Each structure stands twice: as C-alpha cells, then as structure tokens.
C-alpha cells in the first residue's frame, strides 16, 4: 500500500493540470516499510522530453541524483515517481514497462482535457513482464 497525504495528491494533480497537454513528472520521497510505503515529500521535476512531451517523459540521471540527495538530507528514501497521462488511462503503457525499474512505486494519473482524474500506483514485477497495482491509502493532513 502507498500511503499518500491529501496535500500531496493535490500538488501532484496541480502539476499535471499545469503542464497539460504535456506529461508532468516528479519524484516521491518517503519511507519504505515491509507492508506499506509512505510518501513524505515530492520533488516536481522538468520533463526532459522536449521532442515529444505530450506522450513521453524523461528524468535525467542528474535529476535522479538530486532527488536522492533531497531524500537523504531528510533521512528519507527515493521511493518512486509520478507522471501524468494526458487524455490517456492511468495505466502503464508498453513504453512505461520497457523503461521501468523494479522496486519503485510509479504513480500514474490521467489528465483529461486539463482536468486531473484517477490516480493509480504500480510496481514492475521482478521478471519485467508485468506490473502489480499498488493500493493508494489517502490520508488527510499537510506534508511533513
């Protein structure tokens, strides 16, 4: 289960609305426990796919390192990523699967005509052939 405060949901949705019709992306920081994973912070990032931002996103290794440093500075971990699917379902595409890493939580949310819609979280399985959907537990409250 991915535990997500309402304020983070709103921030992620606002990012998707702001960047529509392009895909938005960002990092999820928090703690990974055995049963649950809790998001404690976000790092909104710039989509580096200037050539095809409406249906592709890219986060450079330098930005990944920055996100890791941001997590480490707070005693947190880099636990996953979020990105939007403009006018497209909140499910992983084949392109998502081909480029995914195991272990990370991948939040994908649909932005329909500029309006954020459903949000789902996914984890790539170890064989790289499929995803398991990860439940999202929404809780009230402001970010830490």
């Amino acid at each position, binding site marked *: 289960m991915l535990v997500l405060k309402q304020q983070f949901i709103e921030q992620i949705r606002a990012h998707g609305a702001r960047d529509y019709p392009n*895909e938005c992306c960002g990092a999820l920081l928090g703690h990974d426990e055995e049963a649950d994973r809790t998001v404690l912070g976000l790092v909104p990032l710039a989509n580096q796919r200037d050539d095809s931002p409406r*249906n592709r996103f*890219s986060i450079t290794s330098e930005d990944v390192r920055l996100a890791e440093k941001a997590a480490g500075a707070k005693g947190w971990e880099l636990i996953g990523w979020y990105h939007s699917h403009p006018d497209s379902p909140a499910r992983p595409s084949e392109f998502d699967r081909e*480029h995914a890493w195991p272990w990370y939580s991948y939040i994908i949310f649909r932005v329909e005509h500029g309006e954020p819609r459903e949000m789902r979280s996914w984890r790539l399985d170890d064989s790289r052939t499929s995803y398991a959907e990860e439940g999202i537990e929404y809780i009230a409250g402001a970010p830490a």
Partner: protein
Amino acid sequence: MAVKVVIPTPLRQFAGKQESVNLEAATVGEALNALTSQFSDLKKHLYSDDGRLRSFVNVYVNDEDIRYLQKEKTAVQQGDTISIVPSIAGGCVGGAGRLYFSAEN
C-alpha cells in the same frame, strides 16, 4: 584493480540487499560482467536482450558518465567507485505507443 560498484536502491534486492559490492576489474565492462556473474538476477534489469546496457541505465566512474569516456571500455583505477544510476522514462499511449493492459480493470 579493486573497485566499488554502487548498487541503486531498486536493484539492491537482487544483490544481497547490499548498497555496494567490491570487485576486481580493469574496465567498467569487466566490473559489470563480474557483478552480473555474481548476481545473475541483475542482468535483465541492466541489459536488454541484445546484450547492450539499457538506455535508462547510467554508469559513472567516480563522477564521470562513461558515455563521455570510453563507455564500457573505460579503464578503472584502484579505489575507483563505479555508480549505477537510473534515469526514468515512460509515457502514455499514443504515437508509437500501445496500451499495456488491454481491458479495463
């Protein structure tokens, strides 16, 4: 040369939960081969079926990206740190893409 290979968080489960592994190698390619020989489950996440490093797998020697050096033929020195660093990519259906799940669930 004795080098340290830093394992990114998503792959530590396949490397005995270690944050880094010490290996003997003369080049980056040798180090990665030694790593995947020791931990075979890492291979499919680092390499595509054609034997090439996946495009979203970035490798640094100390703080230099091997793409700007000699790639996997980059020589390593005693005490060097080789870091495997993810880049992240994806995207929705559209253009050349297709939906992974074909049915609503």
